[in-house]
């Protein structure tokens, strides 16, 4: 029985030694499993991350958080001073992957992953992170100091971002004016006006009005042999106060449009009135459906609406800018 006693004693000693070895060789689960550990052990861990045991045991746990991939390589001290691949950091991602993280200022004080995020801008190449170019502290120092800056105190890394710097409010241009045109009866005139407005570089908007299909009626002066004679008659009529446009196309091409009406009775009444004044005026169904367009234009300060021609400028009325 004595040999059995010695055998059990030896087994007991071996078991105790084995437990002792287990505790010594497994520091990482204890570190990761207890978030209350201070920040300093994390930084030390980064510094010794090149040791295979530490690195391989940290990664599976950190991989649960999406920021881990950015965390481990970008806090690599080698990466902080060189863009050269680090043979000890096989899972190093491209730096741009970490860029969105760089602007994060929400790291919590006790979480090593979040704390590590705050260090990312400090180790990014300056060309990829222009807002960090004013950082004068050595990058290694910044990496260490990063976790300590989270919390209520604003990170100096975010201060140079122009969007957050309070600036003088920009006064809106006070001299801008907006105008809306009348509907021009003739499509060529409408197209000419749009060309003139847009060529000026002014902000111009088309406002199309519903077209009532084939129910439109046109009062027209029958076509002239050529456009020149139509234009001459148009000028003559305008001098008499009768608004008219030369019809550019269709079956009444080179005739004069004297008005458009949605109801035939109104068109006939207008034509009769013109005839009483000694003018030729016929009524016909509108032969096509051109868009009834108005134009709204925003004039910059100093611009003159008459640049599109006084004839067109007279068709505009002032409106309130949106």
């Amino acid at each position, binding site marked *: 029985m004595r040999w059995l006693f010695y055998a059990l004693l030896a087994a007991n000693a071996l078991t105790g030694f084995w437990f002792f070895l287990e505790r010594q060789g497994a520091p990482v689960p204890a570190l990761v499993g207890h978030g209350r550990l201070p920040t300093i052990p994390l930084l030390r861990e980064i510094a010794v991350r090149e040791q295979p045991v530490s690195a391989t045991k940290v990664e599976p746990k950190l991989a649960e958080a999406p920021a881990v991939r950015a965390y481990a390589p970008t806090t690599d001290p080698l990466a902080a001073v060189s863009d050269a691949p680090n043979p000890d950091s096989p899972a190093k991602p491209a730096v741009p992957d970490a860029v969105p993280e760089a602007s994060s200022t929400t790291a919590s004080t006790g979480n090593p992953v979040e704390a590590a995020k705050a260090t990312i801008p400090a180790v990014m190449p300056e060309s990829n992170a222009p807002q960090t170019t004013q950082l004068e502290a050595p990058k290694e120092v910044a990496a260490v100091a990063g976790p300590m800056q989270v919390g209520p105190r604003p990170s100096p890394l975010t201060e140079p971002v122009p969007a957050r710097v309070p600036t003088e409010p920009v006064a809106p241009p006070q001299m801008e004016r907006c105008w809306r045109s009348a509907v021009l009866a003739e499509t060529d005139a409408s197209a*000419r006006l749009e060309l*003139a407005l847009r*060529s000026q570089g002014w902000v111009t908007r088309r406002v199309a009005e519903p077209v009532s299909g084939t129910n439109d009626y046109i009062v027209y002066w029958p076509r002239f042999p050529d456009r020149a004679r139509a234009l001459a008659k148009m000028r003559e009529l305008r001098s008499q106060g009768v608004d008219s446009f030369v019809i*550019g*196309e269709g079956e009444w091409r080179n005739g004069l449009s004297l008005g458009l009406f949605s109801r035939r009775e109104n068109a006939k009444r207008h034509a009769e009135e013109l005839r009483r004044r000694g003018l030729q005026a016929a009524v016909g169904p509108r*032969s096509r*459906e051109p868009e009834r367009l108005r134009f709204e234009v925003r004039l910059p300060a100093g611009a003159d609406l008459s640049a599109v021609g006084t004839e067109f400028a007279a068709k505009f009325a002032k409106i309130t800018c949106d």
Partner: protein
Amino acid sequence: MNLLLDIGNTRVKWAQWQGGRLHAGGALSHEAFLEALASATIAKPEAVHIACVGGTELRASFDAAISACWGLRASWAAPHAEFGGLRNAYAEPERLGVDRWLAMLAGRHRVGGAVLVVDAGSALTLDCVDAHGQHRGGLIVPGLGMARRSLFSDTGQVRFPLARPCAPEHEGAWGRDTEQAVKFGVLWNAVGLVEYMAKQAAEALGSPPACLLTGGDGAQLGPWLRIAHTPCADLVLEGLCLQAGWELVI
């Protein structure tokens, strides 16, 4: 601003190019455009690029007006034997209509493969380009308006407002008066040609080419086509940008 003009047989279509994008404008008659130039109401552009299918007289009138108004020399596009990977099928490349050439150029740019360009303008033109950029050839027939007018002017009994809208109520509708008979007939004639040639092109190329529909009458033709097609209102102007060497974001 760079001004682009597509001078067709009846109208001038204009657009502006700025910052890699084409900003579509409108269309107006030749006379109205020349009057606008004469009235000095159009601000001077940086450059003017023109595609013109009209004769030398029309071209000269625009050249003179542009020069007088802005002191600019317009750049007039012409078809090439080869440009941007597109090879002209004509033995005399310069005899191909510049509007067809530019529309093919833009079509190839848009599609990146085999393309059938249908331009329903004053004339109805069809052009087929294979996946390698080889123009297989084209067809020219009277456009919808021209076909109607030819019946109107060449017959004694066909009298109706030519431009009055007269759309069929359903596919394959028969006309119940002379106006409908002419207008529906002209429409189905065009639809049938496009569908027939699309089928022929598919057989010749091994697969159906992408069909792009442009031209002023494209909106009349498009709804009745039973083949997949894409309306592209400004294909000629897009081609003008490309041939001018300007970047074009579609």
